[in-house]
């Protein structure tokens, strides 16, 4: 199947562009910027590290945090957004507070969150949660408010109950916006988790099982002076982010089959 994919023009272009990028980087590292590790050195570092459980533990730590924060943001954000979209009163009460808090970058919450939450792990989870939460809520509200009012009139005419309208009209009509919010939110979650790990995960107060993660891997490699590992950590995050966005997009297509149907 992968062989089949390689035969497509787009796939060939992707491979060529990645190779050219690696070659240029290699040349640059060898002749111009000598303190940048060349890709060959990064690859060598990867070969040594790939067998070590510590490396995979970093992946595991970051993925767990991303999934935890992201899932919490979905679980809280979707009902919250739907509630705000369905009631003018609730919208009037909660939206102003939401709009004041929303521009605060999640990373600005790091110190407060470390003080507020009892464990390091919870404070990272909280900051990660914030990263995705606002995007999801905004998308859910936008999607739910844009529903064609005639859908409700049709449903009411045909004798639908409130629950039926919610389950069969509001939810599916909002789903495409939820998917968009989730994909964007997932990207933000990765940005936030790595920064949070650098700031708090690698701190001296990190006792016991706390700390670790790909962000911490980068930071500790920097402190330890192994530049290949810094770059390796960066690439690992890129790949991790790509995998999660791709999975989410696949899931999105699966739950909204009618969107994809348009192009076929």
């Amino acid at each position: 199947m992968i062989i089949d994919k390689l035969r497509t023009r787009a796939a060939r272009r992707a491979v060529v562009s990645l190779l050219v990028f690696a070659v240029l980087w290699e040349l640059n590292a060898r002749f111009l910027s000598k303190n940048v590790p060349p890709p060959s050195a990064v690859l060598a570092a990867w070969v040594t590290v790939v067998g070590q459980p510590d490396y995979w533990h970093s992946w595991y730590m970051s993925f767990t945090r991303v999934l935890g924060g992201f899932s919490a943001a979905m679980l809280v954000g979707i009902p919250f957004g739907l509630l705000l979209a369905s009631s003018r009163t609730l919208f009037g009460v909660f939206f102003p507070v939401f709009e004041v808090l929303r521009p605060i970058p999640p990373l600005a919450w790091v110190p407060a969150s470390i003080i507020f939450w009892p464990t390091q792990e919870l404070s990272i989870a909280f900051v990660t949660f914030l990263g995705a939460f606002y995007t999801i809520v905004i998308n859910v509200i936008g999607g739910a408010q844009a529903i064609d009012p005639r859908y409700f009139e049709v449903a009411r005419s045909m004798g639908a109950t409130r629950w039926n309208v919610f389950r069969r009209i509001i939810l599916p009509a909002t789903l495409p916006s939820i998917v968009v919010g989730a994909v964007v939110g997932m990207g933000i979650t990765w940005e936030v988790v790595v920064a949070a790990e650098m700031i708090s995960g690698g701190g001296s107060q990190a006792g016991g099982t706390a700390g670790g993660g790909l962000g911490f891997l980068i930071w500790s490699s920097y402190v330890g002076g192994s530049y290949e590992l810094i770059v390796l950590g960066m690439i690992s995050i890129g790949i991790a982010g790509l995998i999660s966005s791709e999975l989410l997009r696949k899931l999105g297509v699966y739950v909204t089959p009618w969107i994809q149907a348009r192009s076929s």
Partner: protein
Amino acid sequence: MISSRITVENVVKSYGSTKVVGDCSFALEPGKLTVMIGPSGCGKSTLVRLLAGFEPPSEGGIAVDGAPAVGPSHDRLVLFQETALFPWMTALDNVLYGPRARGRVNEHTVQRAMELLHKVGCGAFAQKYPTQLSGGMQRRVELARAMINEPKVMILDEPFRGLDALTKELMWQYYAALFEETGRTHLFITTDIDEAVFLADRILIMANKPTRVRAVIDVDLPRPRSLETMVANDRAAEIKQQALDILHDESLRSFAGGNKAALDFIASYERRFGRVAASAATEQQ
């Protein structure tokens, strides 16, 4: 009772101080297809919303077989101007929506849904999503979605507006066949005189300020109707001319009352028939 009589008595609808529908009365005869035609801005779409129960009238009342009609009900279903099919449901699921919402689905219902889809020429597209269907097909699936609920009255608010001429004629045929088969009470709103003559048992010509029935024309053309026989039919041409004369007269009044939209109709009418017909219509009253 399959066919119901719908009566509209002294209905008034105001938004704030603006009276959109003023003292309007008419009846829809049981089992008949009544077409309502009138200048734009005469409150036709507001009447539709009142009949469907989406909004209550400010004064007066609407009754189905003598019983007051309050709020939306699957007794009175509307086909809107533009498609309101649920994009996230396949054609079949859209048609089954009403019965499912009321918790009344069995094998017979699914069978009936497929039968209706076949009847409107969309049987092969039951598993397609609305975005995969053409505009004309979407309207037909929507017709099936309404008809499966066996409404006492079907209200169609300019349903074929925006379709190209050929598609429109195809729609008339599908729709007329469906109407003739079920024999229920239908109200069809349009601004297209050919559509009105082809479909109607009775044509209500509306006037505005206040909204009222200006004239009723009985269309005594035989059913089933086909485009071939209608084009050559003298009686059809006569009815069309009669309706146009009244509409022209109404447009003149409407224009005098400040409705600029009426001007287009007057201009095209006079280009087509000359001023003679217009003055003849005025003398007739």
